[in-house]
């Protein structure tokens, strides 16, 4: 992958934004890419905005996605779409909670994993690498729920439609 892929994940404290970027970065690492992940989290526990940048490819330099250069913007909280839209490049993909059928999620907490599922359908990494990273990233008791949410996100994308 000559040009690095840029992903920005945004939400508010407690939604699992950083867990989501952890999983994505681990998937990229397992797939053999150079990967960098950057986060601003100083105030996350106090309900403030949280964003995480993940970049992967043959070689990554800056850990921060430059404004207007995100290939994908994942937003877990609808109010956070507009503040982060400037990060997306022209033709970049916005993934919001609308992308998944909420009734298929085992619980609300798995939204971050479901949106990773949606993201995964755009990316070259194999499904089993994603599932391995999910298994490694959470306690074993969460795995079935996460797997269900991930697959719901991965399959549900076409039905929900994606706005550029």
């Amino acid at each position: 992958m000559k040009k690095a892929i840029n992903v920005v994940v945004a939400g508010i404290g407690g939604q699992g934004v950083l867990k989501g970027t952890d999983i994505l970065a681990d998937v990229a690492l397992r797939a053999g890419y150079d990967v960098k992940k950057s986060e601003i989290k100083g105030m996350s526990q106090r309900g403030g905005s949280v964003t995480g940048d993940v970049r992967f490819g043959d070689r990554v330099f800056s850990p921060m996605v430059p404004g207007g250069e995100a290939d994908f913007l994942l937003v877990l909280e609808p109010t956070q779409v507009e503040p982060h839209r400037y990060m997306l490049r022209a033709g970049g993909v916005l993934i919001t909670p609308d992308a998944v059928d909420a009734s298929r999620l085992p619980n609300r907490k798995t939204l971050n994993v479901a949106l990773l599922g949606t993201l995964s359908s755009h990316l070259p990494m194999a499904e089993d690498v994603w599932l391995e990273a999910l298994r490694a990233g959470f306690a074993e008791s969460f795995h079935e729920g996460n797997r269900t949410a991930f697959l719901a996100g991965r399959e549900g994308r076409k039905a929900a439609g994606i706005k550029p």
Partner: protein
Amino acid sequence: MKESKRLLLSGDEAIALAARDAGVALGAGYPGTPSTEILEAFAGYGGRAQWSPNEKVAMEVTIGAAFAGARALCTMKHVGLNVASDPLFTAAYTGVSGALIVVSADDPGMASSQNEQDNRRYAVAAGIPMLEPSDSQEAYDFMFAAIEISERWKIPVLFRVTTRVCHSYTVVQPHETAEPLRAASFERDIRGRVMIPPHARPAHRRLRQKLAAMQEWNESCRLNHIVEGSNSLGIITSGISFMHVREAAPDARVLKLGFTHPLPMNRIAQFAKSVGRCQVIEEGDPYLADAIRAAGIPVEGKPEIYRFGELDVPRVRRILSNDISPEPAKPPGKPPQLCDACYYRIVFESLRKRDCIVAGDIGCYTLGVLQPFEAMDTCVCMGASLGVGLGLRHVLPPDQARRVVSVIGDSTFLHTGINGLVEMVYNPPQTGHVLIILDNSTTAMTGHQEHPGTGRTLLHEPAGKVVIEDVARSLGIRRVHVIEPRSGTDDFDRLLAECLDSSELAVIIARRPCILIAKQLKQYEDQRCECPGASQAAGDCAIPGSPAPLSP
């Protein structure tokens, strides 16, 4: 490629892993974003790590360990080095027998800080060597280099990182094997270690000789390197800026500096001569640009507007095209706030209702400045609420002075607020004073670290416990109240009114565990009760949060 040999680590974790692999015997520090995770990770990797009450004490503890020949690590955020600078400046004179690595984690852009001071200036002021890694692999590798430099020149090394190095995760390939701890041993060196003037005068000369020798060594040091490129544009850079530069100007010739004090001026001069335009790209103050130009080497610095905030790829592009047009404002995110069920809310409601003049401090409760409370009038640095409140009381007319209250958290009180309490007893204002200590039994803002008042170590194991009300009473303060603020009663408000009206010195300890970790705290306390040595080691088995007796 073996997975275990290719890790995705934050800069903080990489520093910790290197410390473990290099046989660092002791790590000490005080929590502060973005440095906090270093000691937590070091302990997690099996290193011996401990929180000190403040950075100055941590520095002194690690100086002691390094005097004894051990390898020691001291960690703090940038403003922590202000607190720890007193021992550091003289440790530059005494030197060390082992290694002393001082990590300063700076916060350009102030993601979670009260200022964006550039601590590279400390390396110059104290006269100590400084290394600046650009990513986690360098954070790992440079730790070994820092130890080598510290032991070779017997001097503390400033290991300067920034938020984006500390909190970015990048790939690290660690060493195959870890070095064992070396046995520490005391060797008397009175002239070298006891800084009375007749000993310190030659020590100052020795320090400058060491710096001259280090500068010469740095001229060919592997920690600096050149990325080849077109000679029309040369860039001199260091730290995280190097990564932005590589992306913003992939064709430029780059001198990447890793050992940034004392600077390798001959190498820099050669590089500057080898390129057409020579631009310095650095975050924060123009430390490199000023030093290089003072040495008579013609380089371009950045326009003044780029002194402020973090750099990133777009800003580096702007610097390179000399663009000083106003920068597009980033849309504001959702600001943090006090948790909905946080008991601090009750305290700030009361302070607001009584129109108090609030000298505040550093912690979660600083959020009391925001709406809906707007109940904080000053916040300067760790521990300042006491002194600032007392100063206000001393000079304000009595009707205003009587409304002044100092508000501080438990961890911050034990950090440096305790000295202010001594001042309150020693130089009491005529109108008395009221100090509120918000005791949530943890260092909440930085992610719930332990401190001497929790009675638990960094790893949450039982330890000696400093009881704040006992400290206040032992200083002779008669009005020491412990209260658990609860909604639905006006107990706290009435107590505050009574203390304000008394014109005496009063300390109100508002105690209730942080709701975010109440369950965890209960577990720690249960473990303590099961621990057979607990009663001797750590006092009684009181569960925090159980109603404390009101003491008049």
